[in-house]
């Protein structure tokens, strides 16, 4: 008979945690290196890279790089631009894509299978392929704003937001999740008198916590890391996002410490968003993980 040997059990536990710690360290070290380096002058930073000192707050530690980074580029503005573009896109994307998926899964209309296939097929088209046509379209689109009707969307938030609201991956995630919801819940709601919008708002979305969190994290990362598209469509500093702002630090006099300081600063919103959603994610599992 196999019985648990307490000694053996402890040894296994130690081994398991050693491996897990090692993996965690591998993932965390680049971040530690980034933050530590942001506190050091360039000379020391480069000298430390050959030793473990690179990961430790030792030597000439100061916040000078941060001050210099703010001098060199409007870091606050860039972060705000990225947060606005990313935040608005994520919210609209969750709304639009979940509604589309709801229609594909629950509503009965002719041609939905074909249209869903076409949407899924867009997953294999790289953005670079459509970047130029999209630029042409965006440059000719009309807009009604404070100055009346204008032509061209370049240099704006909307040109960074609108093309990315609907996307195949997010729709796919929602479609898969909605398909797995028990059909009888939807039928029960229909029998109870709920309209389709009520079913969407009161039944389906409250149960979609996990997929909302997943889709939001993926969308956030894509949007926050946007580089090529804003580089093409935004020439004015006032709408520039963080990744394009990184260019400011790769000019003639390259300062690694400032780059590290800038990177550390722009990582903060990502971590905050991730930690926030992770809690929501766990909470949503705790409340919906039970099915009759």
């Amino acid at each position, binding site marked *: 008979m196999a019985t648990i040997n307490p000694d053996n059990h402890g040894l296994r536990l130690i081994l398991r945690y050693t491996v897990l710690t090692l993996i965690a360290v591998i993932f965390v070290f680049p971040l530690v290196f980034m933050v530590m380096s942001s506190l050091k002058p360039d000379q020391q930073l480069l000298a430390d890279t050959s030793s473990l000192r690179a990961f430790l707050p030792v030597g000439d530690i100061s916040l000078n790089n941060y001050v210099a980074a703010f001098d060199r580029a409007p870091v606050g503005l860039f972060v705000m631009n990225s947060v606005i573009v990313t935040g608005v896109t994520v919210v609209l994307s969750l709304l639009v894509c979940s509604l589309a998926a709801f229609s594909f899964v629950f509503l009965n209309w002719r041609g939905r299978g074909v249209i869903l296939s076409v949407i899924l097929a867009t997953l294999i088209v790289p953005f670079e392929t459509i970047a130029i046509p999209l630029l042409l379209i965006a440059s000719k689109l009309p807009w009604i704003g404070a100055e009346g009707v204008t032509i061209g969307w370049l240099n704006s938030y909307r040109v960074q937001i609108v093309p990315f609201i609907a996307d195949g991956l997010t729709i796919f995630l929602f479609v898969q999740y909605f398909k797995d919801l*028990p059909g*009888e*819940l939807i*039928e*029960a*709601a*229909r*029998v*109870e*008198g*709920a*309209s389709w919008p*009520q079913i969407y708002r*009161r*039944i389906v979305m*409250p*149960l979609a916590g996990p997929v909302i969190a997943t889709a939001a994290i993926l969308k956030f990362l894509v949007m926050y890391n946007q580089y090529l598209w804003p580089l093409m469509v935004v020439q004015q500093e006032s709408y520039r996002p963080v990744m394009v702002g990184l260019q400011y630090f790769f000019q003639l006099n390259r300062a690694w410490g400032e780059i590290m300081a800038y990177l550390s600063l722009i990582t903060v919103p990502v971590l905050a968003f991730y930690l926030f959603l992770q809690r929501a994610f766990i909470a949503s599992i705790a*409340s*919906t*993980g*039970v*099915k*009759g």
Partner: protein
Amino acid sequence: MADVKLRGLRKSFGAVDVIKGVDIDIADGEFVVFVGPSGCGKSTLLRMIAGLEDITGGTLEIDGVVVNDKQPKDRGIAMVFQSYAIFPHMTVRENVAFGLTINGLAKAEKDAKVAEAARILQMEHLLDRRPSQLSGGQRQRVAIGRAIVRDPKVFLFDEPLSNLDAALRMDMRMEIGKLHQSLDATMVYVTHDQVEAMTLADKIVVLRDGLVMQIGAPMELYHNPANLFVAGFLGAPSMNFITVDVQAIEGDLARVSHPALEPIAVAHKGRDIRAGGKAVLGVRPQYLAPVEGPAGMLHGTVALTERLGSETVVDVTLRDGSKIIAAIGEDRVYPTGAGIGLRFDPAQAHLFAVD
């Protein structure tokens, strides 16, 4: 409260006909059970009444109004599902009140109705819990509570007890029976469990392959099955069928014989049975009684004995090799391989035409 009329109701999924023309009248306040083997179309029929499946042909009337093209919410029905289908993100109170909330009922009125339903179903103490904190039987109560608060014209139950264990199933079965008595509502109930059908129904509809086999009161179906299918489907253990030779027709009776059976006269009820042909003799296992010595009408040997305490189920191999079952109402031991004689009252036997 309302009556329900199904007239020539048909349903096809593509080229497959699932419901092939069904006529059923359900009176106001009646408890009707649809019963049949898997795939007979009973759940589909219920879902057509609910409005969850489109109707391919025929008409469906609820309370005198044709509702073929009406949405589920406009049919005045409430439905209890097999999986209960209670919303996991809402408390019991919110679940029960869901339909009322959707219809914009005032809070005071809503609270009163929920409290009343909770009282009827004895679940006042559960109202603030979440579905995950409930047992199967409690979830079933919530699903029923959600149905009764809306005061529907017709209650629909889709195999509501099949996810419960045997003891709980019996309790809930009795509760549903009581509920029907106290609400005096029209109820349509789908099950594959004939005990539920026999005990709950005012009227049973036996379905097979999308067709109605027989409609009638439980005991009418039990004592006067219209065909072989109904005879074999209702009753446990199933009715014994013996293929017999028809010797002669004498008025209302047919004289039949079989190698293991003394010739007897059984009512043919005008069925297509002819002298010189074959027929199927049906005898319920409960109506077979053992007799000592060679006096029996059926002769065979004991193949297996199952002692259940209150009764003994004996598998008998007849002389010609065919098998029948006798359910004997006492605890007795029959040695395997021993000869056994069985007797029955021909008035309690049925004669069917060969399919």
